[in-house]
Structures are given as C-alpha cells and as structure tokens.
C-alpha cells in the first residue's frame, strides 16, 4: 500500500509471543524444532484417534484445542462469534487433504518452517522458496478471479461444532479411554493448553496468518501480516539462542531433498492461498464460527491419516515414491481447480 510502513502492534505481539512459545515448548518437551506445528499436531491427533497407526506420532495435542477454544473465548467476549459457511465445503475438505500431504512431504506447516529456520535448519529455506512460489501462483489465480464462492450466515449451532469437537478432544485426553493413544513426545498438558489458548486468542484479534503475510505482500505490497512473521522469526531465534537450541546447519525431523522440500511446500502454499489462510489460521477461524475453516481443519486431520496410511510422509531418510506421486497429483488437481473456479459469484 504505497510502501508506507505502519507498525501493527497486535500482529507483532502475536508473532513475538508465538516465537517465544515455539522455543519454550521445545524446551519443555515438544519435539525438536517443533514447538508448534499446526499440521504435525493434527497428524499426531489423527494418530491418537486411530486414523493412522504410528504410535510414536500419536498424541492429542492440547495446543490445537487451545487454538480453537482461545479464539472462541475472545469471539464471545467481543460478540463476533457467528456461524458462517457454505463456500465450497467439499472442495475445501479436498484442498485441506492435499495441503497436508504437501506439508508432510516437507515435514512442517508454515509456522514450523519458520521455527526450523529460527533453529538453524537451513533445509527449511528450500521449503520457504517452495511456499513463496506456491503462494505466488495462487495469487495469480486470485487475480484471474479464482474464488470458492460466498459464504452465508448459518444457524448458530453450526458455529459450535468445532469448539465442541475441541472440548471433546480435551475430555478424551483427560479421561483416556483405551482407544486413545497418547505416546508422542510432548510438553506438559497444562502448559501446552495455555500456550494454545493464548495464541488462539491473540490471533483472533490480530488475524495473524503466515500465508496471508506473504500473499498480501505479493498481491498488494501490504506488510501488515508480514510483520507478525518477522516478529515470530526474530523472537524464536533469540529464545533458541538463549535456551541453547540454535544449531546452525543441523536439522531434526527434516530431510535434505531440495526438490521435494520445494514441491511439498509449493503444493501447501498454493492450496492455502485458495483456502484463504494457513493451517493455524484455519483453526482460529473455526473457533469463531467459520464452518468453512472447520471443514478444512477436518480435511487436514483426515489428510494426515491418509498421508501416513498410504506411506506418503517424508522422514530424515527422504521422501517415499508414494509421497512424490501424491504431491504431483495434488499440484495437478489444484491447478485444475485454479483454472475452473473463476469468475463465480453466488450473490443473492
């Protein structure tokens, strides 16, 4: 916007707190360079619910419950809780699946990608290059008129589905029925939950979004959301230094295959522009009644199960052929959607 820089304190605060909590949660037990990862945490939650069967990647992540409910609480206080939806829900579900596959071939959502960079994992820069490229292609579709249709106001109960699911997950965590698997490495429940609530609440006000930050810069030279990304990177880097977690050139739960780091995040970036926000942002939106975001989160949860059951997910050893094929199929499908969903308007 005519290049003027205005500091956006809400979004900077959200990003800075995000960076601090990202590093602290690693110190307190979350996996290395994975203080927060929206997609990996959905994957762990999918495992806990039996949607895949890898026990060490199975854990109901309290951070996710917090993202959703933190947003719900703030929306109720500000009276902005409103049930909306109906903007191509099934397409959003499918795009959510492919975004998850792309992110799991890279091994991280955009937030973990930033956290990996802040921990000295330079392979994440390959993912960043792919993400920015995917977002760029997505913005070209937007400019050409791509959209998923208008959402409508819905009966109020619709808006409560995701908050109630989040509450249900918390009850399952606390009561631990024998069909729930809780095995992944993790920070203490109460700390993870409070961290999630704080981030969900802050992001509800600031609309912090990693995809939006890069998208708005490309599309409109608007740096509002980008300031949050910068704050996250800087604060996570500083905290990692203080906590002895900055290891330049080393990587954890990641791989060095440039092409598939790039392609995985290209797929994720393209899909997330079509969906209108990063996986974390989808959870925050689902918390204040946006059922389109809710169905997207459920698509991501389902996609995480699919990704592991079909053996698509990368490991430090590299990317399996099934995963490479799935990324190519995903990119083809999203490009077809980009060309076919243009100039549509369901107004009135």
């Amino acid at each position, binding site marked *: 916007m005519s290049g003027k820089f205005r500091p956006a304190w809400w979004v900077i605060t959200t990003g800075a707190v995000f960076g601090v909590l990202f590093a602290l949660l690693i110190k307190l037990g979350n996996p290395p360079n994975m203080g927060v990862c929206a997609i990996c945490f959905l994957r762990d939650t999918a495992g806990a619910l039996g949607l895949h069967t890898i026990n060490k990647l199975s854990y109901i992540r309290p951070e996710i419950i917090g993202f959703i409910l933190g947003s719900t609480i703030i929306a109720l206080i500000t009276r902005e809780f409103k049930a909306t939806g109906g903007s191509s829900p099934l397409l959003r579900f499918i795009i959510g699946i492919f975004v998850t596959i792309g992110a799991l071939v890279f091994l991280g959502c955009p937030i973990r990608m930033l956290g990996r960079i802040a921990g000295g994992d330079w392979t994440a820069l390959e993912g960043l290059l792919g993400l920015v490229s995917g977002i760029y292609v997505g913005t070209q579709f937007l400019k050409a008129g791509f959209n998923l249709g208008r959402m409508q106001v819905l009966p109020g109960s619709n808006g409560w589905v995701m908050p109630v699911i989040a509450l249900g997950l918390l009850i399952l965590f606390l009561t631990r029925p024998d069909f729930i698997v809780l095995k992944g490495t993790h920070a203490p429940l109460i700390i993870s939950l409070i961290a999630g609530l704080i981030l969900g609440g802050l992001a509800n006000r600031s609309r912090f979004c990693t995809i939006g930050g890069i998208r708005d810069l490309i*599309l409109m030279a608007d740096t509002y959301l980008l300031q949050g990304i910068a704050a996250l990177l800087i604060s996570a880097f500083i905290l990692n230094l203080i906590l002895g977690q900055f290891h330049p050139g080393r990587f954890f739960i990641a791989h060095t295959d440039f092409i598939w780091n790039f392609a995985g995040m290209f797929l994720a970036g393209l899909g997330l522009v079509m969906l209108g926000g990063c996986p974390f942002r989808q959870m925050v939106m689902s918390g204040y009644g946006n059922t389109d975001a809710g169905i997207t989160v459920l698509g991501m949860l389902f996609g995480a199960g699919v990704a592991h059951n079909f053996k698509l997910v990368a490991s430090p050893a590299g990317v399996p052929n099934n995963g490479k094929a799935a990324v190519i199929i995903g990119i083809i499908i999203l490009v077809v959607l980009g060309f076919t969903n243009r100039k549509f308007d369901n107004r009135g």
Partner: protein
Amino acid sequence: MAKEIDVRGLSCPLPVMLVKKAIDAGEVEIKVITNDSAAVSNVQRLGKNRGFRVEVDKDDDNIILLLKR
C-alpha cells in the same frame, strides 16, 4: 454517486482486492457492504493508506464502509 461493492461472504483477500481494483480505476467515492470484521479493518487500512476518509456505519446484519477522497 458512490460506487457500491458488496463483499459479503467473500473470504480474504477478495474484499480488499475488489476495493483496490475500484480505487485503481479512479473511483473517488466507494461504498463497501460487508458482514465480516476482518474485511472491515483490511478495507479501512487500504482506504487510509490510499488517502481516503473512511466512515463506518452498522445496521443489524451488515457493516457499511464509505470511502471518500
């Protein structure tokens, strides 16, 4: 006569893109109808950065933004 843009139900960043398109086309008075608080602050920011005065008006269901140069 203000150019009227209905962005109700459109998700980010389409509301801002449509308003920006109108500004780039030389409109000096734009009325934006929305029902989404994110769109309100995004459109306000765009308008102010482009030298518009922005008035915000609410009725039961919608929020009306009036951008005037």
